[in-house]
């Protein structure tokens, strides 16, 4: 009886989310229309541009991978009640560490890929751990600590690209020299899609899902996020859990950075994080901090990112419109969900009295 009720109520919230997404899509279309984009044409271009052929599909997938990994990272720290804005910086440091391995070591490709992933994960973990230390030991809010460390990471990557790791003879912000092809993640045929990267993203999402649903660590993390004082009274070592959340989130973000250098750019560039750390915040807000929903939304956002290039090319629309669409989707969905839950609460209060 209870389980039936539970399914019903959880379906309700899925329904309201779907409803919210539908309303916000409608609004987004309206806005596009006002800015001169014919709705049907834009929609068609978006689909064609992101999924229309194998090249485009594989491009979209490769935007999805780092975004999904960054989202997974955020979900873990969100569960602990943390606003881990520093994911962006952790992606960058992961990319730096992975680049170091790719540049300095010579090994058979599979070993080298493994070493890059481990190094990238370690780099992200290190940066996430610093944010954690600042927060837990220094009482520096993780938003400020994370943002500060992202600035440092950005400075560091620029320094490396135009300094110690510059291409022979030229110092340019266009990036380091490409890695030896041994360090390139393998792709399917001539396409960009890398099965290894896709696997990493799926594994990351699944890991986060499994940890939060089935493990004691996940439950303790949620308890800490809701009420750290009470969690501690019930025997949870809250500080250790928060730190673990930062470290694990850092690993996932660092792997996102590794994918960026190993599978996409094949070199270190200043904008290596691609803004995915920030975009992922929108993704998990929309995905209600749930792994699989966020995975799907990441893909949709990747479609907009890749497909909206066609808007610019074919309809002469401004290049920022893709980002604007993503923003509207999140904002409107959040507003609609808030209104729904307010209605529900009012109804509950009315029922109670």
């Amino acid at each position, binding site marked *: 009886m*209870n389980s039936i*009720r*539970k399914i019903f109520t959880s379906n309700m919230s899925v329904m309201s989310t779907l409803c919210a997404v539908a309303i916000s899509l409608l609004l987004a279309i309206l806005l596009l229309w006002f800015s001169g984009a014919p709705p049907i044409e834009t929609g068609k271009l978006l689909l064609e541009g992101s999924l229309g052929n194998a090249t485009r599909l594989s491009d979209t997938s490769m935007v999805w991978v780092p975004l999904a990994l960054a989202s997974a990272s955020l979900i873990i720290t969100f569960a602990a009640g943390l606003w881990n804005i520093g994911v962006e910086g952790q992606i960058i440091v992961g990319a730096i560490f992975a680049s170091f391995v790719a540049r300095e070591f010579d090994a058979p490709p599979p070993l080298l890929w493994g070493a890059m992933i481990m190094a990238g994960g370690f780099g992200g973990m290190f940066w996430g751990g610093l944010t954690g230390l600042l927060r837990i030991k220094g009482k520096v809010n993780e938003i400020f600590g994370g943002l500060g460390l992202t600035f440092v990471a950005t400075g560091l990557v620029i320094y490396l690209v135009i300094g110690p790791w510059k291409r022979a003879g030229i110092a340019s912000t266009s990036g380091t020299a490409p890695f030896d092809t041994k360090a390139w993640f393998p792709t399917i045929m001539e396409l960009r899609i890398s099965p290894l990267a896709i696997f990493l993203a799926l594994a990351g999402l699944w890991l986060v899902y499994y940890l939060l649903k*089935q*493990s*004691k*660590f996940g*439950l*303790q993390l*949620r*308890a800490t996020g*809701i*009420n750290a*004082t*009470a*969690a*501690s*009274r*019930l*025997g*949870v*070592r809250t500080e250790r859990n928060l730190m673990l959340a930062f470290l694990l989130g850092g690993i996932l973000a660092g792997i996102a950075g590794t994918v960026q250098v190993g599978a996409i750019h094949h070199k270190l560039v200043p904008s290596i994080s691609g803004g995915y750390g920030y975009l992922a915040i929108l993704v998990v807000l929309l995905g209600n901090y749930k792994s699989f929903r966020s995975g799907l939304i990441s893909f949709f956002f990747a479609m907009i990112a890749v497909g909206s290039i066609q808007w610019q090319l074919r309809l002469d629309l401004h290049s920022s419109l893709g980002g604007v669409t993503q923003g509207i989707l999140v904002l409107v969905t959040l507003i609609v969900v808030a209104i729904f839950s307010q209605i529900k609460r009012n109804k509950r209060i009315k029922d109670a009295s």
Partner: protein
Amino acid sequence: MTLDVDKISKHFGNVYANNNVSLSIDSGEIHGLLGENGAGKSTLVKILSGFFEKEAGEIRLNDQLLDLSSPKDSIKCGIGILHQEPMVFLPFSVLDNFLIGSTDQFFAPRKEALKQFQEICNKFDFELDPDTPVSLLTIGQRQQLEIARLLWLDPKVLIFDEPTNAISPAQREKLFATIQQLSTEGMLVIFVSHKLEEVAAICDSVTVLRKGKVAGSKKLPCPQSELIELMFGKLFPSKEIKDIQKGGIQLTASNLKSIEGRESIEITNFEIRKSEIVGIAGIEGAGQRTFLRTIAGRNSAESGTIISGRNLLNGTDYHQRLEKGLYYMPADRLGEGLISELTITEHIALVENKKKNQIIDWEMCYLRAAELIAQFQIQGTPESKAESLSGGNQQRLMFALMPTDADTILLEHPTRGLDIESADWIWNQLLDMRSDDCSIIFSSSDFEELLSYSDRIIVCFAGRIVGEFERNEFNPEHIALLMSGSQI
């Protein structure tokens, strides 16, 4: 002028915060509203200030019915409230704060306000510079600013809600002088406090609240132990528990010094034996909370030793003490006891974490939750969230989550705010645990509970133990005297 509060009621869940509360106050007198935390003082103040809506009853000023459905109404009706923490805007200047909320005009009449501000300050001898940012003022000065602001609104009734919690003794003297001056000029003053000596020092009459009801009213001065009796209820036990054989020493604390918030303690020596129940009597803030929390390890001691069984607890944290058999149950059940948004099943899964297995067997936890719900008679299902349970059932859940090997149980107000049935049930549990060699230390603001269930009562005052009574020598009048800081 007379303020009549007539049969006010307000409830939260199944507990009345105010139950038929009536009082009548004439202008020119300072009327105390006395009671322990949770007695219903704040609820009444919030009703008078328009933050809460009353469910029943009437409020009249000079026989005129008042409609207080918002703070603005309350101000309009001439009721001014000085809140516990002065409600000021820190970055603004003194004069800006003075002006806030006092005018509906778009442009504030600064010149006129400045003149009146200075008049009020001169009259009451407040030394406030109108251009200083409020953030540079002491809490006492912020209070003076608030008083000045309230007076400018020309109120007929002024309510001081626990005004002395954060100010220095000198500022307190100044505040009391101001209150007295106001009262002499015909202001109707209500002084809300849980501090007996302050009410006795300044008020002309007092109404004591207890468990949401008016426990009684007195003209002052009167013996303080009489007020304590009203605050803490009946001075005799309602139940006789059977005396059982006590075991050896379970826990000792010596030369313990500790501070938490505004409460500090200095306990020279405390011991408890196996199967013993020790009740701590004391007015809120006398140190009982810090004492319990320091023993539990929720708050670290500055110095002193705590020994439990054969273990020296110095240098161990709360979690290590939890493993050594100490279990602490706070008064704030949803703030520190349980996690409001987690279900009973999730709570079970959370505390079963001593086993090595890191993967949760949800089915097992669900069944275990159902079992415990039956065993502890909790009104709820394994899927009920802690926040949806009533106070009594939250307390039962806290018992259900207690490790089975706990041997020292520390409880803050174990039955505060609970219905009689839940309270009885909880004490039956505790008495069973006592039979199993558990030592129990609890604080309470209910004489009946203290006298009924304690094997021994210790009395706290100002952070020290000032009295100790074995069950066969309980002397309620003496306990009441010691609690008020008097000597016997």
